[in-house]
């Protein structure tokens, strides 16, 4: 008898948990938020996202706007981003903000990563060796990363870098080979070492970084970026 009552009570509890909800301009109760988050998680496990379509130049040519491909190495995650903003500020270099449909954004200054948003424990801001008219890093010297750390706080990682030109190295991106030079930035400091690689367009007057592999903070790690436009 007590077993039946217990089962009935447990079933009632489960039904009520599923029925949990909140309406109106007030904060939802904590228990409810956790129940919903767990529900979302189970839902996601059940229906994994569809695999990305095979990338071809023909497909890219049909797109109305340019894309970049960003791969986070430590998560094995790849996404295609569109440009949300292009602007300048009082520091040298062109700023570009690229964004995914699911609200992750990466900001660049002259092709160098200066901020990530929506990734968790991201790069808040960065000081990079940018100069107008130069693709990628313009010189060696100091680099400063401000990252999320210690709960809601920030940590500043200072690094000293040297810049090396590793010579011409054309890159192939989805059926097109671009003439490029391979630049490498080797940085030391804050208890570690970082190597950033850039494949910059070698045609005169161009400031395009076709492809790069850059470090974006301790949590995100290294990211690979490719320009998919022509």
């Amino acid at each position, binding site marked *: 008898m007590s077993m039946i009552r217990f089962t009935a009570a447990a079933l009632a509890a489960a039904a009520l948990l599923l029925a949990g909800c*909140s*309406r*109106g*301009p*007030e904060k939802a109760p904590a228990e409810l*938020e*956790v129940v919903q988050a767990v529900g979302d998680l189970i839902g996601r496990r059940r229906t994994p996202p569809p695999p990305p379509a095979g990338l071809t130049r023909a497909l890219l040519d049909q797109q109305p706007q340019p894309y970049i491909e960003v791969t986070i190495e430590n998560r094995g995650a790849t996404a295609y981003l569109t440009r949300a903003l292009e602007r300048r500020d009082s520091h040298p270099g062109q700023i570009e903000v690229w964004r995914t449909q699911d609200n992750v954004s990466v900001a660049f200054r002259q092709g160098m990563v200066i901020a990530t948003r929506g990734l968790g424990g991201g790069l808040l801001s960065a000081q990079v060796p940018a100069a107008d008219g130069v693709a990628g890093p313009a010189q060696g010297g100091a680099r400063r990363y401000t990252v999320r750390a210690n709960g809601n706080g920030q940590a500043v990682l200072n690094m000293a870098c040297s810049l090396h030109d590793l010579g011409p190295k054309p890159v192939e991106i989805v059926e097109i080979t671009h003439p490029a030079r391979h630049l490498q930035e080797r940085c030391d400091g804050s208890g570690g070492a970082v190597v950033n690689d850039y494949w910059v367009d070698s045609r005169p007057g161009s400031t395009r970084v076709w492809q790069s592999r850059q470090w974006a903070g301790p949590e995100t790690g290294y990211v690979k970026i490719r320009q998919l436009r022509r």
Partner: protein
Amino acid sequence: MSAIKTLLHWTVRRTAPLAGSLAKPLAAPAAALLCLAAQPGLALGPEITRAGHGAAPGTEAAAPRLKPLPPPSLNFYGSPGLIDMPSAEMLPDGQYAVTYSWFGGTSRYNITFQALPWLSASFRYNGIQDLGLFGFDTYYDRGFDVRARLWRERRWLPEVTLGLQDFAGTGVYAAEYFAATKRFEAAALGWGRAPGRLKLTAGLGWGRLGSHGAIGATGGTRPSFVGGSTGGKLATDQWFRGDVAPFAGFEWQPDARWSLKAEYSTDAYETETEVSDVFERKSSLNYGVEYQYSDRLRLGAYYLYGSEIGFTAQIQLNPNQPPTPMAVPAPHPVIPRSQWATQDSHWRQDWAASQSKQRQIRDLAAAALKADGLVLEAITLEGTRAELRYRNPRYRSAGQAAGRAARALAQTLPPSVETFRLVPVRRGLGLAAIEIRRSDLEALEFDPEAADALFAAAGVQDAGPLPEDAIFSGELYPAFATSVSPYTKPAYFDPEQPFRLDAGVDFAASYAPAPGWRIAGTIRQRVLGNVKNGRASNSVLPHVRTDQVEYAQFGTTLENLYVSRLWKPGRNLYARATTGLFESMYGGVSGEMLWKPVNSRLGLGLEANYVVQRDFDQRFGFRDYRTFTGHASAYYELPKGYLMQVDAGRYLAGDYGGTFSLTREFDNGFMVGGFFTLTNVSSEDFGEGSFDKGFRFRIPVDWLLGKPSRSGFGLTIRPTQRDGGQRVTVPDRLYGSVREAHRKSLEDQRARFWE
């Protein structure tokens, strides 16, 4: 240098002749390993983060890391240590350790919190099976420990820590000790590619830790342990008195996961083995092996006292290291006005004269805020200024909410508006005003020092009165909100059953007819639970809190039903008035006034309540106990997230006194704190525990889930729930929500503004 070397020698050699049977097994490997360790003095602080050994540049292992080194392993008392003996190590600052240990019929549940880099505190609940003493078959007890590091490890100097174990309870585990620990790291100590580590510990113990192999005595005879007493008093008459004995041991970590431990224990277990017969103590040597199962969980198996098998499970959390890093959907970047307001006509201010245009702008701003989970309460638009009053039901960080609100305004307001005045509002109460120039917002978003630069340029002021020409949101006032959510309600430390729990569903509704006003109620339906089987009260005071079991007899209850009003009577002042059923046990009228300037770390409050005890069935009836209770409070924000609160006044049972509480709140909302209350109730009248004390903690939902939320799971745990020094719980007390939006909090959270 030579003096320091002598001390090291002391720690190793002193143990050898004294420890008798320990001498051979322990000293030989220790000496050998010492020789192997070419660099003995590697003082590794837990805060040091280092790149992996020999990792190639360009790999993630070589890049800077913020993850701390693995923390020290814990002993059977939940403190850093060997097996049953302590070591001198400290956990990383803010670390939370929960351990369970079992051997020979003795089980201990321990919670340790590293309150400061050099100070830790523990709470323990233990059970000794079949002790058969003091009128209990299984003897349950609670106790507190505190440990302070006297100095840190340096090149040759060992770390030294002073510990007081079970210093305030009945004292079944009462002991005092000094422990010294020296760590060595060398390739020869490891069995993989990475170097291994060896930790040597030696110490002197009094009390329990001086009960076997004593080499002398200090301060005369030690008063003995009396089981079953009320406890709760500091046992200062015992500390460092009586026999003193040296203990020692080592922990060898050949790789990052495994460790082997051995120790010489000076705990004679007199109560367990001589007075009673819980287990047999045949040897003083204990051995163990531990395995780090995951970043947070460590498991250990041991052979103790020549006769017993034991095991531990150790869980360590650090509030600064969330299980999932917080990911907030990326904001839309601020588009500088220079890009879209290109003509002079765009910059005109004539829109400000038109009511309909103002409404249109309000609706645009409300939609932009809504996309980020914020609620527009009211907006005041002038030609070059705008004041936004908004609710923040989503983000714990007031800084992040302000950042999102500022972006929403930058996205929707006409170009002529240059000054944004952001006023976070809670229950109609303006908490602070953050003034930001729109040009700064545009100029600094991609600055290398974006967060610091913007906070330096922003002003934080008193919210001030609501402007007369403010346009309210069309969707609020009146507004109705409902929720259905599960709840749990625990009860602790009944000797029959240490943990009981009720669980069920809350049906809550609230109605806000006008700004600041709120009518709210909750109906609670229990689904399962066993709190109702608990102990009946034996208190000689009015039963203001100990009739919990009587209240738990009813499954369908009205948890609360009240009307409240919050308002700002003047500059730096906040006020609240509430009437109705506040909580399951009390209803009445309550008034509160708080003085808290935005830029001050000090707050002063006054609260007065006239309350009537509710009927056990928790509907509309009352019992005939009614009283006045009220307090004057002082709140002070100390560095490192510490909050100090002192309350003085009259408590529920009519007793007069004061409460002191110290809480550490991490800026991600994680909270740990302790409190005690002393009133004019004598310790005999108070009963078990002598006075009211306890600790509380809160784990934020956003910390657990890695996505924004303002909720948290909080618990207040008292070793014993009695009737002295108790306060009524009134919804919407002012200080917590007011402080959140003030300068110190915003400054601590400035990194989140741009996120």
